[in-house]
């Protein structure tokens, strides 16, 4: 675990040095996105259009590349398709250093140019490169890498920038306010732009029909870099091509809103170069500006493959190419908010989708360095303007890392029997333990008194931490000696007979409810029976969520098949499937689409409900709310009043079942305050890992800020959330169904 220890240290260091600045900015962007997209009519339709355009364009990319070539050449420009970074850099340096004999190249912000490291290549040939985007310029002066794909210097504070300027320019009285710093940069960069020889930009989109490229900017530096120089080099990945100019429209409406929450950025440049503008001659500046010098402009479009055409052939990574690099998935991500792109990123790209980009461009090793930081909370999914299943890409890459890096000599014989046949031997121990949580839980339940006492013992925890990387500051789950399924059978099964029931339901005994938190299962049975439901609690296998979270796709897939086999007869008999654990319901509704035949997935997804969603539906259909527990009857913590603080589960939010609990509690007369935090930070097993303990607690910190001194009764739906909130607030919340179910 030695490399992992370094990883943990690095994360702790970045949290301390950059975490606050990154958190403030990304949370601001994220709120801006929610607000701006909320005001946009037809937001969902625009996203669907954007997705269709990308699917179509990537589908016929080779043909579109040729169209772009024809269009740009017809306009008088040149297109070069570079196989890789070295090829692109060779072309660009030859053009710049040799043909143009340029001394200085001015650049606007472009992640693709960072990817190929063109600055270094140009400087090696004696060309001075000046980043003109203010954030990029700061990083160039500081010799640092971007921490965010859209706002590259968000990790730097205003004070830090002021100190940097003072040092680099030897200033006694450096600019301090944002206004002063900006004007200082405007002036310096303005001079550098005036006598530059070549202008380099990226391109957000390129239309094949006309060779028009679109640039999304705010500062005006891209406009200046293009206008002030007679040679324009645009560097763009091949995936930036769309068929027509008209198809730019949905992206223009979505990209700013999704990223920083601006409806549209200050400048959307649509260039069909070479442009007509005269080239201002700042040396001989008493000549008329409009001197026809626009006729001598030269334009080169350098399209970069660098692994992208291979990604296009890769069924799983292909979706990455739809990404428009808006940064929504970074901003929406709890872990990213805490650590930023210096930890949650690879060579060039950062945030959840970086796993796809880095795996495709740099390789699995690079992706493996940060891929763990995607916990699969799924809060980025509804934020992505092109509907990329970002957690799935992370899962796939994790699966490939598991397989590719498995070294048989490290096989740990002790836990070998825990590794299902589908997975490679030699997976690291914490991956295996979590991936086989169901087996462990069964064992733990069988030996509950002993197991619980043992796992609490200090020396045992130290060994668990050292061998399995599970942080000793975490409470380990306490196994119940009587699983829910056994309890249900022992009580004689259903209390509401079939012929008297309003409906029939199967309560899915998820691993956590069945073996650990049996009380919430019993409460669910009471609530459903109070509403005249004939309940069954059959013995069913785990959903496959824990192995999936560890990238063990084959194991998760066979779990899906087993669960479906166990539930099919019930679904055939028109029984509803009621699920307590939101992450398991999310499996049934979302991930099982990838594992089951289409018809099976649809039937199961349609038949299954979140327990609070189900209670909500029963009440809507005439169920008697008086059969449930209203606030006045409460004792214990609930007696503090009818005031409730509710933290919905991240994946529950994504699949749209988090609001039913609020509705049910309010219908019963509770006063509910909902947590503003989208993911508690525990995310299954993530927060248990020694490397990530502090990060996990930091992600959950806003919950403590919001509910730390509350006198409200705290409820939460997910098992992980329960453990995390217990750690944060010092008291374990109950599931909403435990609040509303009648007493035993």
């Amino acid at each position, binding site marked *: 675990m030695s490399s992992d220890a370094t990883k943990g240290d690095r994360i702790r260091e970045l949290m301390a040095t950059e975490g606050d600045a990154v958190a403030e900015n990304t949370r601001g962007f994220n709120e801006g996105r929610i607000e701006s997209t909320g005001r946009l009519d037809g937001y969902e339709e625009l996203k669907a259009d954007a997705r269709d355009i990308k699917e179509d364009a990537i589908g016929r990319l080779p043909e579109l590349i040729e169209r772009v070539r024809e269009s740009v050449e017809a*306009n008088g420009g040149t297109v070069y398709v570079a196989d890789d970074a070295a090829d692109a850099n060779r072309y660009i340096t030859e053009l710049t250093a040799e043909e143009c004999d340029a001394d200085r190249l001015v650049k606007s912000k472009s992640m693709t140019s960072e990817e190929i490291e063109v600055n270094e290549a140009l400087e090696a040939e004696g060309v001075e490169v000046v980043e*003109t985007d*203010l*954030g990029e310029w*700061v990083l160039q002066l500081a010799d640092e890498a971007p921490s965010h794909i859209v*706002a590259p210097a968000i990790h730097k*504070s*205003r004070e830090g*920038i002021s100190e940097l300027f003072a040092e680099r320019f030897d200033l006694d009285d450096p600019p301090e306010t*944002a*206004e002063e*710093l*900006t*004007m200082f*940069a*405007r002036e310096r*960069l*303005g001079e550098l732009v005036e006598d530059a020889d070549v202008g380099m930009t990226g391109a957000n989109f390129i*239309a094949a*029909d*006309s060779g*028009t490229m679109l640039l999304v900017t*705010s*500062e*005006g*530096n891209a*406009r*200046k870099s293009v*206008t002030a120089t007679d040679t324009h080099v645009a560097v763009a990945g091949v995936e930036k091509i769309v068929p027509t*100019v*008209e*198809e*730019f*429209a949905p992206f223009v*409406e979505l990209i700013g809103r999704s990223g*920083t929450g601006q*409806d*549209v950025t*200050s*400048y*959307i*440049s*649509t260039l*069909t170069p070479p*442009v*007509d*503008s*005269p080239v*201002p*001659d*700042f040396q*001989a*500046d*008493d*000549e*008329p*500006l*409009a001197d*026809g010098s*626009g006729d001598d402009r030269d334009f080169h479009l350098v399209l970069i493959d660098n692994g992208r055409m291979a990604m296009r052939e890769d069924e799983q990574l292909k979706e990455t190419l739809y990404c428009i690099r808006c940064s929504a998935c970074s901003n929406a991500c709890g872990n990213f908010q805490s650590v930023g792109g210096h930890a949650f990123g690879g060579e060039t790209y950062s945030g959840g989708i970086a796993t796809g980009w880095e795996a495709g461009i740099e390789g699995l090793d690079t992706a493996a360095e940060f891929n763990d930081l995607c916990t699969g909370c799924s809060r980025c999914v509804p934020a992505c303007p092109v509907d990329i299943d970002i957690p799935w890409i992370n899962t796939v890459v994790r699966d490939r890392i598991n397989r590719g890096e498995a070294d048989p000599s490290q096989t740990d014989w002790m836990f070998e029997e825990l590794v299902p046949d589908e997975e490679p031997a030699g997976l690291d121990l914490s991956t295996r333990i979590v991936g086989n949580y169901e087996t462990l839980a069964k064992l733990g339940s069988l030996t509950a008194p002993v197991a619980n006492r043992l796992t609490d013992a200090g020396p045992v925890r130290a060994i668990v931490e050292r061998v399995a990387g599970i942080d000793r500051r975490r409470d380990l789950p306490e196994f119940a000696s009587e699983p829910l399924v056994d309890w249900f059978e022992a009580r004689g099964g259903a209390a509401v007979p079939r012929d008297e029931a309003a409906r029939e339901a199967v309560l899915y005994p998820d691993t956590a409810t069945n073996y650990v938190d049996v009380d919430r299962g019993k409460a669910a049975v009471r609530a459903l029976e109070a509403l005249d439901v004939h309940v069954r609690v059959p013995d069913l296998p785990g959903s496959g969520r824990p192995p999936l979270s560890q990238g063990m796709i084959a194991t998760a897939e066979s779990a899906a098949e087993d669960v479906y086999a166990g539930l099919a007869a019930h679904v055939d008999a028109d029984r509803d499937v009621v699920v307590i654990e939101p992450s398991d319901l999310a499996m049934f509704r979302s991930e099982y689409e990838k594992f089951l035949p289409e018809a099976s997935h649809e039937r199961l997804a349609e038949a299954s409900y979140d327990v609070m969603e189900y209670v909500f539906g029963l009440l809507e259909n005439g169920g008697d709310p008086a059969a449930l527990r209203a606030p006045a009857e409460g004792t214990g913590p609930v007696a503090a009043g009818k005031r409730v603080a509710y933290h919905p589960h991240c994946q529950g939010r994504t699949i749209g079942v988090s609001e039913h609990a609020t509705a049910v509690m309010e219908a019963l007369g509770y006063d509910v305050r909902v947590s503003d935090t989208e993911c508690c930070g525990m995310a299954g097993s993530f927060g248990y890992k020694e490397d990530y303990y502090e990060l996990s607690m930091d992600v959950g910190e806003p919950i403590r800020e919001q509910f730390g001194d509350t006198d409200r009764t705290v409820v939460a739906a997910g098992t992980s959330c329960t453990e995390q909130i217990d750690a944060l607030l010092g008291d374990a919340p109950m599931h909403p169904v435990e609040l509303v179910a009648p007493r035993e």
Partner: protein
Amino acid sequence: MSVADRSTFKRRLDSLGVTVTEGPENECAELIDEAAGDPAVGVALDAGSLPERVETDPTTAELRAAHTGVTDAELGVAAYGSVAIEADRAGTEPVSLFVDRHVVVLREADLVPDMPDAFEWLGPKARGESADVVFATGPSATADMGGLVHGAHGPKEVHVVLLREDGADAADSEVSADE
């Protein structure tokens, strides 16, 4: 252009901190004169005229020294408060960019409701004669220095002169201003 588009456009400009004045085409020079600082450079307009003091064939030195640049906009996008500035041989792009204040003249007839309309206008143009158009929304801006600042590289201020269509009377604009 509908009355609703005009009022949306003006509301959006207002929220972006862009000032607007309106009048008929024959008052164009006056409206520009009120809005432009000194010294001012400009590019000859399609509709309406420029005041005398605006230098229409500036040297690069005059451009660099100018406080204000005056140009046409080809199109306005009501829903976003954007104006479409087209680069040309006369220097519309540098005149709108290398200055502190950009005064942009837009005919109401050239206002379209929303982004898709703007790209339907741009598409045939780009495929035909080739088009270099920037959709500018408010002044140049940055948040890279620890707070939102206008005038990062481009203009710090933008003023729109909206030229009313023939027949549209002042009362009409009063109504929309009240909305």
